[in-house]
């Protein structure tokens, strides 16, 4: 399981993640990857401590408010009850949910359980691929992608960035084979044809529409941009 993870977020992505500067869709992918990957989890914690140290050392801006406001605010805060509201407890006790497909049920990482908590709607794409959109933000298109056993996605490329996090099963493409926890990054112009013998559930994040490059699937291209924009703007 854990030992088979070969693909991880880059150091730069982990840093941006810890600074809170990645898009929500990508942050969810990194967070879910760390549910599988102890190494990245530890690296990330270490990085966060370093960022906190830098924060304390380097930023020393002007006072945010005058002394009167300070004092007033302190009084206001300390007059409040200190008990922690249940909804602010660190997500420790949130439940994980299972996603049911035709052939299998998959227990989702915590963050994706939360995202899928209200239920998902599956749609069918060419090649035995099913997707269910998750509205995360306005910058990315985030989907669960389920490849049925023996399925092959149409050959495609992207202008931007595609992150695929394997949640269950395996898939392969021209560049390798991917196992649960693998955080697979494809950048613009890389063309690939994912396929899965045993079936595979992934969480996928796109920051621009897919461009299909083979057969009848190319007919989908004019619609991809429309669908991407529509999904990205529906999320209010």
């Amino acid at each position, binding site marked *: 399981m854990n030992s088979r993870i070969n693909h991880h977020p880059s150091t730069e992505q982990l840093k941006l993640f810890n600074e809170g500067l990645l898009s929500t869709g990508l942050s969810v992918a990194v967070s879910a990857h760390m549910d599988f990957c102890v190494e990245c*989890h530890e690296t990330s914690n270490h990085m966060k401590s370093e960022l906190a140290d830098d924060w304390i050392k380097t930023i020393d801006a002007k006072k*945010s408010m005058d*002394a009167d406001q300070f004092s007033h605010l302190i009084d206001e805060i300390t007059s409040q009850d200190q008990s922690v509201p249940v909804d*602010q407890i660190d997500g420790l006790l949130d439940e994980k949910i299972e996603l049911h497909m035709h052939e299998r049920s998959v227990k989702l990482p915590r963050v994706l359980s939360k*995202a899928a908590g209200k239920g998902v709607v599956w749609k069918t794409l060419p090649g035995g691929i099913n997707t269910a959109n998750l509205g995360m*933000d306005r910058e990315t298109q985030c989907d669960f992608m389920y490849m049925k056993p023996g399925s092959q996605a149409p050959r495609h490329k992207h202008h931007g960035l595609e992150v695929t996090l394997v949640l269950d099963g395996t898939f392969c493409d021209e560049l390798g084979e991917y196992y649960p926890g693998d955080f697979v990054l494809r950048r613009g112009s890389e063309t690939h044809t994912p396929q899965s013998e045993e079936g595979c559930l992934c969480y996928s994040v796109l920051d621009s529409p897919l461009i299909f490059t083979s057969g009848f699937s190319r007919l989908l291209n004019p619609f991809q941009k429309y669908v991407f924009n529509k999904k990205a703007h529906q999320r209010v």
Partner: protein
Amino acid sequence: MEIHETSTRAMEGTDNEALLIAVGNSQDRTAFSALFDRFASKIYAQGMKITRNDQLSKDLVQEAMLVIWQKAPLYDLDKGTAQAWIFTLVRNRCFDMLRKLKRQPDGICADDIFVESGSELSVNPEQQQMAEIQVEQIQQYYKKLPPAQQEVIEYVFMKDLTHQEAARNLDIPLGTLKSRLRLALTKLRENIGVEQ
């Protein structure tokens, strides 16, 4: 104002961890004022960096300092330095503030994404073995918990009920169940930590 300045001056040599623990353990207002002095301008600067808006940055100071006050009882030294803990709270509030500004859907928030605990990671075989040894320890400590906390652990972990089902079966509000569970787990983790 002078009283505030005099009292926080007395705290000058105290480290952030001691201040935060004093706030958490005994609602120490002077310690909180000292933390406020040390962190408010940094939080404000962080807000300006992200939002470039004075009012939003002041809101961030207020919101983050309130959460520090409220969550201080949850802080302990196992969670790292006080500044890393505060940095996380501020980063999370900032993240949510930006999401709100961009009118993103509210189904998910920073606390869901930036989870503190590594306890739920998928386990490999070596970790599995360690876990089995720990289960025996947990069972010993479990018996020492107050009956109300034993009960929630039993329903959620042994009978494997959802939080809602467990709350219904025990005839207690969901919030009560969650806080009892939280207390019980914190206690168990503390005990196991001490033993190791």
